[in-house]
């Protein structure tokens, strides 16, 4: 029997997606369906004096216009999901603005009409009187407190501190210290499909069905049930295809309450599809962070201390994952290095910008940029080869498991479970050609300044403590497998079939996988924090064994209760005394005759060491100093994700993540004007990489260290490809421009930004 785990099995999802037969939420057409458009604030900060919906409501074809007064006390704040920082409970969002608006894009009213065009026509007829207030857009203004965004909070900020060791002592005694200030720009996921929902209320069953959900359907079901005052069993999250998520799709947004609530009010199916401009205004932003970071080293470049202050702009409200980026940024600042003494003050502040949440590698992208840039600067100052500096500081394989201390307040102390950081590092350096290319570092070749840079990372995965799966034997002997992970393109339907096929030694084609069906799985925990391969993968495996055990209860009867060993082997049960065997179709028929179903739900409790993926990214760039243009000559991402379940799938994840990382490093920027208006609310202004931008990228996986903490030996694979990209390329660009005295400390490295940096450095040189 061929093993499927580890094989590059082409994805079964492809067949319907290639034929244009995917079913995304806007593909759902129901009889009597109405269409909703959301009327949103055009002002960043203000008190609502009046909302005039008369003209909108009177437009032919409009069925209803809803404001907060239609919901009154049933409008409840959207609860945080994870990682809430102190005081976040005062920054929660109501699904509709009531007294104030706090960001451009905040929902004020919902129009429902017989067509989406008419709904938009009507929305443009709504007028709202707003007494404008000063916009708070950055930390200085927020911390000042003279203007509060949430008056009842008494503050605009939240701060925690984490540490390990004694940074005061370490810095006092250090041979060398350096302090720098870094910034990462606001940018976000921009999946190709915008958000959308269809909600259907069944008045007879008193049940609401919602399409368009992914990521954490079970959590959202619970949240919605509570907000609609329904039992969870009355809320069904219906599985559909989703056009990418990357963290921003699937958290609970205002519309996730409004559309179902309105569907129930009207007793008609209601569809809402976000347009792209709305998406830029209303779907989670991310990454806007500054960091004051200081490093302390001995004369050999061993990092004895790292301390700093991270400040994150979380936008107008604390979203479901609003605390993740600030807190994980601090946790991952030390990275894969020993750094015995570390302390970090973490500030989150609200602002009159779109609320922010998690986007692929939240907090890690920022942390790796801050730290790896500072390490390169320190290496230069100390006259140490930047590669040697890393080698002297990596936690080694011999030190595993390695205690990193308690660096997030909502979890206990953490440990790196396994890994050979140095081996991955050396591989990346070999792949980029470090030894040979060192000679051209910083030199101009045909007018292009050459730079090689690298950055190492460690990345947690498998968030959460457990996951469930269900396996049901169908009448024809094939299997239906239900997993708690939600899919938005990660190949779950294929990968979990591989795991099940191997566990049961069955052909792949006999297994169907359904993701995140709240109807068909009693409990699931979703897709985030690179958890699916590990958590659902192991849940499927655990459940498969439980499935076989359940089958044993009938197979003995099937064989007539002989007093012999009965063994499951090669996808069927074998009697030890004869050649007789019983396959699944046979047992399915047998069970049906007896009126039994073989339907097993299993739980995988993650009690072992949590898996940490790790690796190194390396880049070779060429910079035109006259224009600031950067050519990416080569980029390699080396990562160890433990056991690779499907190399085709994880390679695709890596390449896609690399390109998103390059977009964030060079071109993506959610820019606001001084009033708080978003200037980049279209794909013409918010620039994401196209096929022509970064052809020379590579991703490779090493299976050096299987995760000791779970039976599959797997680690998360979805985010490692992005987390060190900005760090590596900014190190490369800084190396390329070293002769200009340029140090990249701010992102993005757009041509105009680099040109400005070069020009400022040159004027510094000329005046010195």
């Amino acid at each position, binding site marked *: 029997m061929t093993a499927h785990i580890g094989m590059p099995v082409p994805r079964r999802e492809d067949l319907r997606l*290639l*034929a244009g037969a995917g079913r995304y939420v806007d*593909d759902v057409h129901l009889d009597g369906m109405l269409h909703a458009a959301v009327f949103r604030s055009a002002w960043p900060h203000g008190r609502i004096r009046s909302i005039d919906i008369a003209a909108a409501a009177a437009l032919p074809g409009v069925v209803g216009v809803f404001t907060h007064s239609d919901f009154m006390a049933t409008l409840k704040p959207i609860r945080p999901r994870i990682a809430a920082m102190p005081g976040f409970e005062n920054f929660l969002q109501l699904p509709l603005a009531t007294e104030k608006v706090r960001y451009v894009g905040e929902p004020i009213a919902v129009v429902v009409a017989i067509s989406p065009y008419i709904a938009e026509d009507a929305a443009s007829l709504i007028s709202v009187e707003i007494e404008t207030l000063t916009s708070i857009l950055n930390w200085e203004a927020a911390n000042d407190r003279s203007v509060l965004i949430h008056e009842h909070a008494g503050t605009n900020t939240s701060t925690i501190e984490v540490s390990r060791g004694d940074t005061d002592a370490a810095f006092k005694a250090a041979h060398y210290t350096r302090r720098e200030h870094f910034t990462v720009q606001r940018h976000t996921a921009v999946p190709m499909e915008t958000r959308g929902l269809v909600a259907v209320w069944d008045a007879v069953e008193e049940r609401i069905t919602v399409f368009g959900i992914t990521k954490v359907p079970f959590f959202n079901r619970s949240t919605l049930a509570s907000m609609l005052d329904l039992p969870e069993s009355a809320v069904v999250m219906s599985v559909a*295809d989703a056009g990418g998520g990357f963290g921003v799709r699937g958290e609970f947004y205002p519309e996730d309450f409004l559309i179902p609530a309105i569907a129930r009010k009207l007793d008609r199916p209601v569809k809402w599809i976000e*347009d792209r401009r709305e998406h830029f205004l209303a779907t989670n932003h991310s990454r806007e962070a500054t960091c004051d970071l200081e490093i302390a080293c001995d004369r050999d470049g061993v990092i004895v201390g790292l301390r700093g202050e991270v400040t994150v702009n979380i936008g107008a409200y604390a979203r479901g994952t609003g605390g993740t980026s600030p807190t994980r940024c601090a946790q991952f600042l030390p990275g894969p290095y020993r750094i015995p003494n570390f302390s970090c003050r973490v500030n989150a502040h609200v602002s009159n910008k779109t609320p922010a949440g998690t986007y692929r590698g939240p907090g890690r992208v920022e942390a790796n940029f801050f730290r790896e840039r500072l390490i390169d600067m320190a290496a230069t100052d100390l006259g140490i080869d930047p590669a040697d500096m890393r080698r002297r500081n990596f936690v080694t394989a011999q030190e595993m498991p390695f205690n990193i201390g308690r660096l997030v307040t909502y979890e206990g102390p953490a440990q790196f479970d396994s890994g050979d950081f140095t081996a991955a590092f050396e591989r990346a350096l070999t792949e980029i050609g470090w030894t040979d290319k060192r000679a051209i570092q910083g030199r101009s070749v045909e007018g292009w300044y050459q730079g090689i840079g690298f950055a190492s990372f460690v990345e947690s995965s498998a968030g959460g403590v457990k996951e469930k799966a269900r396996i049901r034997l169908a009448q024809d002997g094939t299997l239906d497998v239900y997993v708690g992970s939600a899919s938005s*393109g990660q190949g779950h339907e294929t990968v979990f079939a591989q795991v099940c096929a191997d566990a049961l030694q069955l052909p792949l084609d006999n297994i169907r996988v359904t993701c995140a069906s709240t109807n068909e799985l009693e409990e699931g925990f979703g897709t985030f924090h690179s958890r699916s391969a590990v958590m659902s993968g192991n849940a499927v495996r655990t459940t498969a064994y439980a499935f076989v055990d359940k089958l044993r209860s009938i197979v003995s009867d099937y064989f007539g209760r002989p007093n012999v060993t009965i063994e499951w082997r090669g996808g069927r049960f074998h009697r030890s005394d004869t050649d007789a065997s019983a396959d699944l179709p046979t047992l399915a028929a047998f069970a049906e005759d007896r009126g039994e179903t073989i339907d097993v739900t299993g739980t995988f409790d993650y009690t072992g060491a949590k898996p940490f993926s790790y690796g190194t990214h390396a880049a070779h760039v060429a910079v035109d100093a006259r224009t600031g243009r950067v050519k990416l000559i080569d980029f390699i991402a080396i990562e160890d994700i433990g056991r690779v379940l499907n190399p085709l799938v994880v390679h*695709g994840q890596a390449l896609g993540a690399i*390109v998103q990382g390059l977009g964030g490093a060079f071109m993506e920027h959610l820019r606001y004007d001084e009033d708080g208006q978003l200037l980049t609310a279209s794909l013409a202004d918010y620039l994401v990489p*196209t096929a022509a931008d970064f*052809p020379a990228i590579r991703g490779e996986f090493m299976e050096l260290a299987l995760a000791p903490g779970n039976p599959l030996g797997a680690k998360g694979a979805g985010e490692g490809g992005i987390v060190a990209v900005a760090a590596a390329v900014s190190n490369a660009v800084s190396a390329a421009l070293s002769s200009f005295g340029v140090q990249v400390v701010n992102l993005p490295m757009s041509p105009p930004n680099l040109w400005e940096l070069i020009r400022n450095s040159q004027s510094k040189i000329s005046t010195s």
Partner: protein
Amino acid sequence: MSNVRIKVSVNGNVVEHAVESRLTAVDFLRHELRLTGTHVGCEHGVCGACTVIVEGKAVRSCLMFAAQLDGKQVVTVEGLSPEDGELSPLQAAFHKHHALQCGFCTPGMLATAHAFLLEESAPTAERVRDVISGNICRCTGYVGIVDAILEASSHYRKPS
């Protein structure tokens, strides 16, 4: 809002409809004809998810009105699948090279690639990248898509 009567050939089938004059071509295909394979990603002509083939040319259907399809031949992704349920060479190449993840940009990629390969059947990788630079993908990083189109191109060359 006035109505226009149109007669369009879509994937070889001639259909007659009365459409609102402001109905876009992509909304007509998706919601009137229920050919939901073509997707809407931006409605401002940048992302390429809505690409269909009109009179043999790959175009952005979010930037055309249904009224403009009158008398025209349109091919959508649904029309790119062989009748027998197998994968076309282009689809098979996408499948082999893992050229799709979430699948949302994929119909636009397929329509663009198909129309392009019928015009130029031996492109370089750089030319392919140039042609699909008007189709945005956030999942794949484009490498598999380019490899797939290059592999499929041999099937578009006439035997000499």
